[in-house]
């Protein structure tokens, strides 16, 4: 399991303190690192996908403007063959970009399913604690102040946000290449890039989680 906080300004302060953590706390801490890594990966994929989505929209516009050109040039058959060649080239490129975007969405799907596993793991920890300490749970918090249930709450809230975002991305993927309305294409691109369902609250939740589990220095 990768617990290294790659790409973050503040990495885990030394392995010694980490290895001292065991049991549920170990698991919760690892999960927090996983959240961080998964979201980092998601953001990278989002940027990659954004470039592809832009290309798809531009290619789509080329296609429709070429159709118009062909209509305009009716009667002038001389250039028709090169035009259709162009259109063929265009469609091939469009298909390629759509395939690439599909692969990005597939990778995002895998990320979200990993997130789901994290949520069920947090729930498992709560069940374990109920078994160990009764319905009241443990008396002292695992780390600083959060009760164990809060880790599960944060996890499921983050998961819901990314799940919704993924659904939106799937819808964009389906519609993007078939939209002739340039304004709607633009809205799809904005939706892809700005991710309306992962808001500042999600960022705050993640930072809180990292702070509580000691990945970020207090």
């Amino acid at each position, binding site marked *: 399991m990768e617990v290294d906080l790659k790409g973050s300004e503040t990495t885990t302060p030394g392995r010694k303190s980490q290895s001292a953590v065991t049991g549920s706390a170990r698991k919760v801490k690892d999960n927090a690192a996983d959240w961080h890594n998964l979201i980092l990966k998601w953001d990278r994929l989002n940027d990659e996908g954004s470039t592809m989505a832009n290309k798809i929209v531009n290619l789509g516009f080329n296609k429709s403007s070429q159709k118009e050109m062909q209509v305009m040039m009716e009667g002038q058959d001389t250039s028709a063959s090169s035009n259709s060649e162009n259109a063929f080239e265009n469609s091939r490129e469009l298909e390629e970009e759509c395939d690439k975007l599909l692969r990005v969405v597939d990778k995002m799907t895998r990320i979200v399913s990993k997130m789901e596993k994290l949520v069920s793991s947090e729930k498992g920890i709560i069940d374990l604690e109920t078994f160990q300490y009764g319905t009241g749970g443990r008396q002292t918090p695992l780390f600083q102040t959060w009760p164990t249930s809060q880790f599960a709450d944060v996890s499921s809230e983050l998961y819901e946000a990314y799940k*919704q975002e993924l*659904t*939106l991305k799937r*819808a964009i993927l*389906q*519609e993007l290449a078939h939209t002739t*309305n*340039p*304004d*709607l*294409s*633009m*809205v799809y*691109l*904005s*939706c892809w890039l*700005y*991710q*309306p*369902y992962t*808001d500042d609250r999600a960022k705050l939740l993640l930072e809180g989680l990292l702070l509580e589990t000691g990945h970020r220095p207090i």
Partner: protein
Amino acid sequence: MSKSVLFSVNQTLKKCFQSLENNQKVWNSVLSECKPLMVSLGNLEEQLRAFQKVQIANTPLHTFPDLHQRLHFKLIQAVDIVLGKLTDKMCSLQSVRDAISNQVSGAFQLYEQNIGSLDLATCTQRSPVAPSIADMLEWLQDAERYYRQQFLRRKNLLLTLRADDLSLLETAPKRWESLETPSGEESISESPLAAITDVSLSG
């Protein structure tokens, strides 16, 4: 009239032009950093406009809850971030302007302090290799005024921008670009550069 006074005035003017040259470089590099920000401002305006034209309820996205408000918020937030970055850049421009103003007023102060020993003939005397003190002071004043006005115009433009006023946002990149007056820049570049080489020759 002592030669030493003339020498120190010339030295100060020389330094002034040298620092002006450096400040001009800083100014231009800050301006070039503003360009991509202005481009993103224009992009965001396009996105907001498209967003306003589209009724999400009539699109395949209609099943998504609160999408309209959420996307609107995100777009406005993005505009705010870009405007914030531009405001930071304005601070850099302001410090360049202040540096130039200080240098120039220092030069004028020195001139005024020694006005008794610098008569009109000395101040206006030119040679084939050096401009007169009067010329150089005038150029410095021109440069100082140019940066002062540029700063105010740019700052004024930014202050009028609002994330919810699309027509202002739409024209902002063009208006920002139109503030660049190549003739004004050139007139400053040419005279100080000439002056630096000339003064160094005569000094």
